[in-house]
């Protein structure tokens, strides 16, 4: 399963008009059979009435005008009016049905995929960028919804229009109709081939366009460097080259596609020429009427458009199917970690934690933890130190059950944590992240995120405990201050304080902390320290520590290297050993402290 996630972004999606995906796409319309059938019905009706009305004009001319029959003139005019009226209704019908259907499908698929994404594993999110997922949620789903509505409208309408017209042409003059039958496929093939060529040209344009976009964004992002290095002129030269390429590519695509219409028109005109020539002769020998000739010309010019559009519609359908393949692969992904069928809601934990012979690896060739054992008593604070890549974060992720051990067990209060539901378990274990993530909204909303049922008083209490209250009150709108998207309007220190309050309010039993202090000034650091102590008091906690003050105060320090505990003990003991910890500590000491003074 995880291997599927791994390749998701790079996989090729063919978009071929295969049955399976198509079937599944239309399976999505099953809740809206009415709309689906309705719009197919109305679109066919529209195509039929259109052709019929052309057919009727024939009689208006032959019987009414040339036959000198006033009542026929009246009659067929009224028929025509009726056609327009019915068609008006029918057009309303298919637009209404198709549009609504599209919006319903879009809504439902987004809903489904969003819910599905909420439950996918962390391993999946480690490998998949949120930008990629966002495009799946937005443009891919939009394309699928269009496939079920507008693309289908175009395809069905176009096909029906051509077929129905041919049938009517046979009614009028079968020999001439046969001639047209020979020409039409030629016309269609030529059109599709040519259009595909143009579509390829436009693909080139798009690829240059994305280069232009990144050139813009890079020069804006790096404008300060550009200025300080005085590169404006050279940059413009380079960009000028790019925009010239763009000009050439899109000009080429432009004139090629302006060749397309005249070519189709010419072929059609040739067909009309045949109609005039052969039809005219048939008229003189009585094999056809003037009205029939007019109707024929009408049908042929009418077919011009669907033929022209077909190639575009099919290429768009291909894209939509490729989108659908992506979406369905995503939907078929199963979470790596699933609740056992008889999993329990978690009780409150006392906080005994045990790693029992835990083995873990992300990829088989590179084991991270090998027979890892650790026993932690209730209320202990464990600091985990060691070099990058040694397995510190893995231990934290395993404990929070973002990943599960490949073999071995993790026990909470003596029970394998797989006995509990993920949701229950994770709501009892708080994870305080290195860079706190806030959601756009107010400060208050963010604090309450951890415990939605909590009242205002509880919130205030928590933020006071976290020493965040004072900081929050200095904001212009206090707790109602908007934090901006991902909290960008606040400093990292402010975000950390708020996330601390959020965690205190959530009142977890076990705390996992991945801390970083590089962006906090001394004063804030002190504040956070007090808040942290409140949080850690009486709770079992694991701290991946960078901050010496925390390390020193921990009940036990684990030096983790290459997935194993190299040293274990409290600060004094480890310093006395003069080993890894000693070296780490002395080299880190100066570095950590100097910048902290100033922020």
């Amino acid at each position, binding site marked *: 399963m995880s291997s599927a996630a791994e390749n998701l972004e790079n996989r090729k999606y063919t978009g071929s008009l295969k049955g399976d995906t198509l079937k599944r796409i239309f399976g999505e319309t099953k809740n809206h059979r009415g709309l689906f059938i309705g719009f197919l019905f109305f679109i066919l009706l529209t195509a039929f009435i259109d052709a019929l009305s052309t057919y009727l004009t024939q009689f208006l001319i032959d019987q009414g005008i040339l036959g000198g029959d006033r009542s026929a003139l009246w009659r067929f005019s009224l028929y025509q009016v009726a056609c*327009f009226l019915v068609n008006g209704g029918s057009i309303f019908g298919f637009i209404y049905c198709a549009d609504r259907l599209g919006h319903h499908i879009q809504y439902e698929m987004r809903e489904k995929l969003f819910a599905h994404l909420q439950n996918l594993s962390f391993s999946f999110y480690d490998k998949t960028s949120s930008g990629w997922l966002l495009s799946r949620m937005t443009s891919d789903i939009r394309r699928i919804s269009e496939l079920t509505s507008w693309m289908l409208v175009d395809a069905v309408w176009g096909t029906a229009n051509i077929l129905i017209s041919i049938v009517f042409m046979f009614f009028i003059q079968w020999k001439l109709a046969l001639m047209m039958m020979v020409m039409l496929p030629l016309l269609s093939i030529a059109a599709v081939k040519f259009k595909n060529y143009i579509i390829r040209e436009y693909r080139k344009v798009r690829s240059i366009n994305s280069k232009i976009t990144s050139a813009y964004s890079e020069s804006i992002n790096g404008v300060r460097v550009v200025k300080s290095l005085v590169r404006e002129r050279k940059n413009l030269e380079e960009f000028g080259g790019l925009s010239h390429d763009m000009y050439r590519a899109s*000009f080429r695509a432009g004139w090629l596609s302006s060749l397309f219409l005249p070519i189709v028109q010419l072929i059609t005109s040739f067909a009309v020429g045949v109609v005039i020539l052969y039809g005219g002769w048939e008229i003189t020998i009585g094999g056809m009427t003037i009205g029939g000739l007019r109707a024929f010309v009408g049908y042929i010019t009418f077919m011009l458009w669907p033929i022209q559009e077909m190639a575009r519609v099919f290429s768009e359908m291909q894209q939509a199917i490729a989108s659908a393949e992506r979406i369905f692969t995503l939907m078929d992904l199963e979470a790596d970690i699933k609740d056992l069928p008889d999993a329990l809601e978690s009780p409150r934990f006392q906080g005994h934690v045990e790693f029992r012979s835990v083995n873990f690896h992300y990829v088989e060739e590179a084991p991270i933890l090998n027979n890892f054992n650790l026993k932690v008593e209730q209320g202990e604070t464990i600091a985990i130190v060691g070099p990058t890549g040694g397995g510190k974060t893995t231990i934290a992720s395993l404990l929070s059950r973002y990943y599960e051990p490949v073999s071995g067990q993790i026990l909470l209060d003596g029970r394998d944590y797989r006995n509990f539901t993920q949701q229950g378990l*994770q709501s009892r274990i708080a*994870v305080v992240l290195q860079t706190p993530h806030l959601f756009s909204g107010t400060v208050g909303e963010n604090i309450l995120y951890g415990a939605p049922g909590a009242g205002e008083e509880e919130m205030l209490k928590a933020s006071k405990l976290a020493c965040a209250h004072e900081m929050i009150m200095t904001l212009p709108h206090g707790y109602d201050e908007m934090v901006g998207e991902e909290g960008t309007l606040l400093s990292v220190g402010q975000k950390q304080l708020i996330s601390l309050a959020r965690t205190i309010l959530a009142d977890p039993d076990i705390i996992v902390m991945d801390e970083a202090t590089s962006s906090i000034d001394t004063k804030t650091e002190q504040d956070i320290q007090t808040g942290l102590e409140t949080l850690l008091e009486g709770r079992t906690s694991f701290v991946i520590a960078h901050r010496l003050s925390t390390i020193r105060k921990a009940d036990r320090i684990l030096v983790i290297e290459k997935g194993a505990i190299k040293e274990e003990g409290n600060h004094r003991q480890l310093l006395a050993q003069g080993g890894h910890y000693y070296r780490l500590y002395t080299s880190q000491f100066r570095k950590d402290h100097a910048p902290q003074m*100033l922020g």
Partner: protein
Amino acid sequence: MHRRRPIGFLRFFYALIVRLPIGDKLFRGIPPQNHPENIKYTAPEGGQIMKQKTKESGFRGFLTLFALLKGNRRLYTLTILALGLTIAAEVTGFMVIRHVVDGLLDSEVRGAGIIHFLLVWTLVFLALALFKGALSYLHGWGKAHCSEQVIRRMRNSLYDHMQRLSFSFHDSSQTGELVQRSTSDVDTVRKFYANQIPEIFQVFFQFSINLGILLVLEWKLALFSVIVVPVVGAVSTVFFFKIFDAYDDYQDVEGRMSNRIQENLSGIRVVRAFARQEWEKDQFRKINALQRAKGMRLAWWNSLYWPFGHILCGLQFSATLLLGGFMALNGTISPGTFIAFSSMVNALIWPMQELGRTISEISKSHVSYRRIREILDEEQEDLKSGTALDAHELKGNLEFINAGFRYSLEGKAGDKVLEDISFSCREGEKIALLGATGSGKTTLVNLLPRFYDYTEGKILLDGEDLHSYNRHSLRRHIGIVQQEPFLFSMTVAENICYSLDRDVSREEMIRAAKAAMVHESIMSFPEGYDTMVGEKGVSLSGGQKQRIAIARTLLKDPRLLILDDSTSAVDADTEEKIKKALKELVSGRTTFIIAHRIQTLRQADRILVLEKGRIVQQGRHEELIQEDGFYRDVFRLQTQMEKELRRELESASQQKGA
């Protein structure tokens, strides 16, 4: 004979739903910019293509869209004329059919050899078709050429203009927004030339040519046939503005929805940590449902509009045909005329249905154009005026006399960022800046290359007012190494040679890289110096980036140097390398260092301690530790920590010994 083109409107839906740029709404709420009287836009080819008075707003501003065609005006006019001729050819085709029909009904013609007659007129018809095809191709070719040319110029001017706008402009605008304007808004404007103008003229030609011929053929019938035209035109315009409003609403919600998704996805770990999946789903469902509701409203307007136009035009068509039919019966017009008539009425009425769309799209183009102009109307930094400097001319003696700086926002003076800064330094001296975040260190050094211009007091460089130097040459002689240097997505080599106008030999570049202690790291990359940096290539560590930036600055060989000396992000080994590299860089140049560490500060010739934009202390290390103040606090804290560490280690080793 011409029937209406139903798939044309299906295609329109496509355009409406699929192709319109998303995120237009993101730009709403941008304050109107100041419009300076005159702005010169430097165009890439050296001409002043976009030089315009830019004070106009509204319709007159809109008219400048035509001025942009300059250089392609003649071709564009020919293009439009070709379109007119295409339509004339089409109408002539109707007349040919008229002639054929009347001929077929005329016994005289039939007697004189019908085959010959038919053959001749079929050939005439085909010749017309060829003529029309050729013109139609010319039209397409011409409009593609003109519109792409205009847009190419526009892209270039935007690009160049943006890189020449001031720091303050870039401080206050967001990258995403500027990129959107330069891409999707520019594309919308392209459509103005490539689609909208030709469409308007198409409707115009179709209407006037067909009507003209109709009037000649039978004026009463002609007038009768256009009764509905103004109604359809007006109604469709009103409708389309409605539809576009609804569409804007829809897009707005779409933007909010994708923000919501984005936030959820990037915060998914927090969502899981607090087990808030259900709540997230609820929130999403709300916005998703809102979007569906907006979509339904859009669907409603759409489904109402098209049948309305269809029926209206259909009734007009039927009525005209009926009247024409009676005229033909009475012999007022020939049957051929009747058939030609019906085709022309068709060509006259139905395009009106889409007129509204074009008009409302033009109004969209106008909005896009205005957003582009807002950028172009911003005043460029003046890079050229003032004294130019040769390298050896600049010595690097600086004097700050009560200098100060405040931002100005839209003409209004903002908060003071720097105040009353006075100090001086001589050629080759090292000035260290110390202070908390927001104390004004960065702003102070940004005054030197004139990224910002001081607003109060005076700054003298080599005895001359700093403002008298031209920015370009000033910047050429000032090197900056940032804490988090920005590298471009080019090769390592191109990044190192980035700042130079001249060609640099491989040896010279490698020498710089070696001096910057980064040569070895670079050689370990898959393609050495030709390795791409960034998304498409290797991702560099902070230390590597910094050293590449140092190499870049070494090659630039500036007289004045600004360093942001913060190495917190690198390990001890790298730190050592960076130190060595810096030593090389600093020697003999006037240097400003933003420093945190006593070790660095100690070596400076002068230390400036900043607090809230003012210098609170200045002097050498030895002087400052005698004074009561921030510097001594920092010094004590740092030395105290050293002591503490030593104490701890001692006690630990005692314990060990015990």
